[in-house]
């Protein structure tokens, strides 16, 4: 049973902020609806009290992509299909495009949005690990204020973020990645399409004369929420990237993921697999760096 009594169709972000202002937490923003509407269907406790939906699909500002010398700014209500077909995002953020292609199906990608993916903050949200290695920040607006926050800080725990009930995420702001950083993304699910991620990893690497100049690693699904591993990145900085070191990175990452996630029934399977995924990803990046 869908509890909604009213759907509002604002045309500006200011209007959204005003609508969010005068309620008692019974309003929720809807964009693609691919999490909210099945949530209603299964009577998820997260969605039982929603009486007003504020549909943001008619707001152009939230669908636009712009580039400056320093950053790429992406509207939060951009769909994954729009990400996949956007030439600027393809050029600057290839890992985000690769992850977007693995999401759901064509029908889902035509509706589901980038903002919705991390605002819902399911552990398996496929776009989060790429956004984290790209050091993404988000712009949040309310009637009272506008602020910018690191995505990593915005994500609290599964299905929880720092978003307040009177706020809307308007933009995802990604600093232009240095051209020397090349990377890859891998998602492991139980099947090839319409698949919930079990493990995903995003890695960016800058190798200079065989030395690791910079490395960025983020996980999805295998950790409770998308997580950057700054300590692992720092630990291997400046080291010579050879086969032994890649194995060491993979082992260390597996150990850290185990610490973050705790021992689970699936750990015996997942940890060796995540280590193998890490090894293969870095091997592939190493080949492309030569």
């Amino acid at each position, binding site marked *: *049973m*869908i*509890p*909604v*009594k*009213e*759907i509002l*169709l604002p045309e500006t972000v200011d209007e959204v902020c005003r609508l969010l202002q005068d309620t008692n937490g019974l309003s929720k923003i*809807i964009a*693609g*609806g*691919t999490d909210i*509407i*099945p949530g209603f*269907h*299964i009577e998820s406790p997260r969605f039982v009290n929603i009486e007003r*939906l504020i*549909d943001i*699909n008619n707001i152009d500002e939230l669908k636009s992509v712009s580039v400056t010398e320093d950053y790429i700014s992406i509207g939060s209500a951009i769909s994954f*299909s729009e990400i996949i077909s956007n030439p600027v995002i393809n050029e600057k953020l290839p890992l985000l495009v690769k992850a977007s292609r693995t999401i*759901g*199906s*064509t*029908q*889902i990608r*035509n*509706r589901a949005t980038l903002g919705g993916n991390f605002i819902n903050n399911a552990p398996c949200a496929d776009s989060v690990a790429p956004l984290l290695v790209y050091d993404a920040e988000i712009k949040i607006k309310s009637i009272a204020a506008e602020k910018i926050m690191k995505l990593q800080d915005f994500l609290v725990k599964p299905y929880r973020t720092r978003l307040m009930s009177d706020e809307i995420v308007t933009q995802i702001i990604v600093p232009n990645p240095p051209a020397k950083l090349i990377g890859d993304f891998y998602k492991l699910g139980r099947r*090839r*399409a*319409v698949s919930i991620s079990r493990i995903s990893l995003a890695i960016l690497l800058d190798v200079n004369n065989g030395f690791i100049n910079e490395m960025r690693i983020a996980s999805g699904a295998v950790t409770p929420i998308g997580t950057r591993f700054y300590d692992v990145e720092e630990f291997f900085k400046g080291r010579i990237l050879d086969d032994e070191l890649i194995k060491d990175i993979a082992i260390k990452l597996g150990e850290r993921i185990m610490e973050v996630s705790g021992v689970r029934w699936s750990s015996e399977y997942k940890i060796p697999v995540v280590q193998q995924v890490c090894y293969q990803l870095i091997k592939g990046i190493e080949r492309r760096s030569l």
Partner: protein
Amino acid sequence: MKISFVLNSQNMSIEIEPNIRLLDLLRDKFNLTGTKEGCSIGECGACTVIMNGKAVNSCLVLAGQCYGAEIITIEGIEKDGKLHPLQENFLKSGAVQCGFCSPGMIMSAYALLLKNPNPTEEEIKDAIAGNLCRCTGYKQIIDAVEKTAKEI
């Protein structure tokens, strides 16, 4: 709430409850029962329709979100009482058995051919990856789409 939209090339205006889905609007208000309800959570694709030129799961769109949209359902693709070539080729290729997935499958293929008239086999597989068929398997369905692409 009142919504106006285009349904199978006809302008429509209708008073609806805000808590119904596009799927319910099509089946219950317009009697367009070609669009099927399968899983209701966006995994099976039986309810696929075209919204503004793109395939969507009508179980994951609220009717109130369709304001001003252009919707095409399986009933809207025949012309002058003649089946669409996709429908013809599904029949000819043995791509229909129980028929429950066929409307959604055909709408996904229809959306693909709208933007890509000459798809590769991989592109066809990708376009129908969100549509489950439990009878014929997928080979005949892919054949039917390939055949249609060659004809039109």
